[in-house]
């Protein structure tokens, strides 16, 4: 019989290998799934993972998908390291998008010598922070489980969005379509690469990853966050405030998710619509884990997850595969990653249980 025994030291090589193994296993299952659906797996893989990035435009589209994933995942990872479970990034994206849209429609022509997109972008970050502050407040003041509160707020935020695009923010000229007016041009995010949709949000995402890396690896506060998650007793003994870590985690991750939502509406979408995110906030959880909660790893993981989104859209158009296949792959990937991670600390041996 097979059983697990603890390794004396965690395997460094497996720690790096585990995400690659997880990706490989996901692709194996994907291939089996394609065969079961009567598609040639080689064709399907080419359509999903190869053809989308054949030219500069494809890469720029990948960048558009990757930006919100990095922004959310980098923030979530800071919390996850501290054992603060914000799983409501999707709601923080939505509220950030609403806040940004509202400010963009009110002040979008710019003024005070500021670019028109700056205030909406900041409003988006603030909106996400406010939405993230609720679970932080209820966790620190009332001990309410932050997983459930942040998740409930995803649904509340979703209905809030439906309400504003059909009510207060609906374009009176939209012939009843639930959408806001298009934002004025100065409120749209600058494009980084001519003739593509790659916007400033991508640069901000990379910047956020860099700052997060400095924070986690090089700052005293980052150390406090890590210790609070990995050795709560030691952190408490050292006099570090758990409440501050919870607040910090939620404000950072909420703010970055709000920024991601703002960048989506100010960038590629250009107006507030009933759907602003295809589940980026949830996919970012997987990206954070797949990237080992490390900013560089997160960039790599986000590229892969972005490819899932991009490839999923193409598979839907070219192979008539349902777009939901993206969610199946995302879940499988996290399953395999979690399973593979076990072998970093444990070794599989033959023999009966003692």
């Amino acid at each position: 019989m097979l059983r697990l025994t603890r390794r004396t030291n965690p395997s460094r090589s497996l720690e790096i290998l585990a995400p690659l193994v997880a990706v490989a296993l996901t692709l194996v299952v994907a291939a089996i799934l394609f065969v079961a659906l009567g598609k040639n797996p080689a064709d399907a893989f080419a359509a999903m993972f190869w053809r989308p990035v054949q030219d500069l435009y494809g890469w720029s589209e990948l960048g558009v998908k990757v930006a919100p994933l990095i922004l959310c995942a980098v923030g979530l990872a800071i919390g996850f390291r501290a054992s603060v479970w914000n799983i409501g990034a999707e709601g923080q994206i939505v509220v950030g998008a609403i806040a940004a849209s509202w400010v963009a429609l009110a002040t979008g022509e710019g003024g005070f010598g500021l670019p028109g997109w700056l205030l909406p972008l900041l409003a988006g970050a603030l909106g996400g922070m406010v939405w993230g502050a609720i679970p932080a407040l209820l966790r620190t003041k009332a001990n309410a489980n932050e997983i459930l509160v942040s998740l409930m707020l995803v649904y509340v935020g979703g209905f809030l969005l439906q309400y504003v695009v059909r009510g207060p923010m609906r374009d009176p000229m939209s012939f009843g379509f639930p959408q806001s007016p298009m934002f004025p041009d100065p409120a749209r995010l600058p494009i980084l690469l001519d003739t593509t949709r790659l916007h400033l949000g991508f640069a901000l995402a990379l910047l956020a990853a860099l700052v997060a890396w400095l924070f986690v690896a090089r700052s005293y506060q980052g150390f406090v966050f890590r210790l609070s998650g990995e050795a709560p007793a030691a952190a408490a003994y050292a006099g570090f405030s758990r409440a501050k870590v919870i607040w910090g985690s939620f404000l950072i991750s909420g703010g970055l998710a709000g920024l991601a939502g703002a960048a989506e509406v100010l960038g590629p979408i250009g107006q507030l619509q009933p759907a602003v995110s295809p589940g980026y906030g949830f996919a970012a959880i997987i990206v954070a884990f797949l990237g080992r909660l490390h900013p560089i790893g997160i960039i790599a993981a986000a590229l892969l997850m972005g490819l899932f989104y991009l490839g999923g859209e193409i598979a839907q158009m070219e192979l008539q595969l349902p777009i939901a296949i993206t969610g199946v792959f995302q879940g499988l990937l996290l399953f395999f990653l979690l399973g593979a991670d076990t072998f970093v600390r444990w070794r599989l041996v033959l023999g009966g249980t003692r």
Partner: protein
Amino acid sequence: MGDELSTAIAVIAATLRAGTPLVFAAIGELVAERAGVLNLGIEGMMLVGAVVGFMVAASTGLTPLGFVAAALAGMGAAAIYGALALNLMTNQVATGLALAIFGAGLAAFLGQSWVGIPLPGMALPFPETLRSIPVAGPILFGHDWLVYLSLLTVAGVAFFLHRTRGGLILRAVGENQESAHALGYPVLRIRWLATLFGGAMAGIGGGYLSLIYTPQWAENMTAGRGWIALALVVFATWRPWRVLLGAYVFGGVTILGLQIQAAGIAINSNLVAMTPYLATIIVLVLISRDATRIRLHTPASLARPFHPEA
């Protein structure tokens, strides 16, 4: 019968129906948590149960068979969780999240060609003569099979956990896994059984939505009920009968919102739709403020991985 009385009876009946999927999902999770297993993936198991149950019922025309399939599908989804969280000792929070994401994706994938297909109804258990008794008839005898089954399940779980040896062992595993192991109880096997039971119940709860409550399949039709069920277990402080109370309170909140709109009070439907989620938050806050009470009732080994070596 007066108009107000018949409205009140209709509201009670609707409340029970709205609460029933939550009763199933929460009582299953309660058993798993009492054994020390924190499975956050209820939403995923419910969706898989809902879609598989619907596919089987729609293609065979047999709604009861749909429920069997829903339970099995929920168990299948729970088995993925069990293999990872129990055997491979993965982080239970992350594994549950993965199951929620995977289940939603899988259900949407499986169900895409079943959207909008109608389903034959299921006969009610009690005859018309009983149901047409004034007041008592519709309240006591007017419901579908599953409403009664959910009540029986809660009673059965309450009896099992607190009145049988098996229940005592299950609670021991959840309270102190090392002691339970030292006494020779098969910790992993008991957790597996509890996890599978949780999956079956979540599957049936999802099946109730697609087979009876709606009855149709729609993507993400559970709309967060799996997460509300998790909150209900906390609300119930891990005691079975209080799950029932909590589920009906939530059912009532949902129905009340609809009633307010039906009464012609001008309030936006999207704002009304927020109420169950806001109510969940409020209830969590009220119940969690007493930290000592929560700590006393939480199974002490909840979410802790078990390995005989450790």
